[in-house]
């Protein structure tokens, strides 16, 4: 274990910020969902890094990361189902075309 903690944090922060850029800039809803997955994965790397460097004998860190996996799976399933339902009614997955609630 010679890699200091800040390197893990820096890589995870970089992936998270790339995900933020993807969520804010992409027009395709599936691409936005992929960026969200990137952000969740980066957060998980952060959690495990803090667990390994801060409290490695306590199992709580790994338990927490496991629940993030569960949330990511549920989010992906529901998100993609919504995208498919929107595509069925609007024939498009571009988020600007989904404007039914615009006043």
């Amino acid at each position, binding site marked *: *274990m010679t*890699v*200091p*903690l*800040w*390197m*893990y*944090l*820096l*890589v995870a922060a*970089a*992936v998270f*910020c*790339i*995900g*933020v*850029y*993807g969520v*804010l*800039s*992409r027009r*395709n809803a*599936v*691409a936005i969902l*992929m960026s969200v*997955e990137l952000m969740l*994965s*980066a957060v*998980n*790397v952060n959690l*495990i890094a803090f*667990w*390994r*460097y801060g*409290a*490695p*004998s306590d*199992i*709580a860190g*790994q*338990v927490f990361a*496991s*629940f993030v*996996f*569960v949330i990511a*799976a*549920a*989010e*992906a*399933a*529901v998100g*993609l*189902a*919504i995208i*498919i*339902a929107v*595509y069925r009614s609007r024939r*498009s997955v*571009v988020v*600007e075309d989904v404007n039914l609630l615009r006043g």
Partner: protein
Amino acid sequence: MLELNATTLAFFVFAILSVGGALGVVTSRNLIHGAVYLIISLFGGAGFFILLSAPFLAAVQVLVYIGAIAILIIFAVMLTRSMTNMAEVVNRQWWLSALVGALLLLMLAVGVIFPVWGDGGLLPNQPVSDQVATTDELGAAFVGGEDYVLPFEVASLLLTGAMIGAIVLARDTEA
């Protein structure tokens, strides 16, 4: 200074996979290529889990993220035929989004990571001990009857709810 051994070398390889894959996800015009880049990035994350002595979570990362979520995304891309009619990949505020992302990274690095965990920072940046909890203990914590049984069952319930909700949402109403 960081000595160059197998661990640090592996770290840099996984870091390149992770960040490079992430850049590919947000820049690729073809969404199938984006999904492949996502898989590469998630493999980098799984490598980090191995380096951080959490092998079970690395396996879960490969199984759940790559085996399930990435494949689900590829299915959604194919079902929605979204590759064909995409003249513009990014919206009009993409430069603002890039600015937000870059500023967030700068803020995190300069404001949080380096002052607190950098060399000579507030908190130690090396592991406090090499006594690492094992996968056996993780399993016992989940279903052993004392620690995390209730959250574990609630998570199962959430997954069931998400699965039923996804089926109901994506179902063809005329059928």
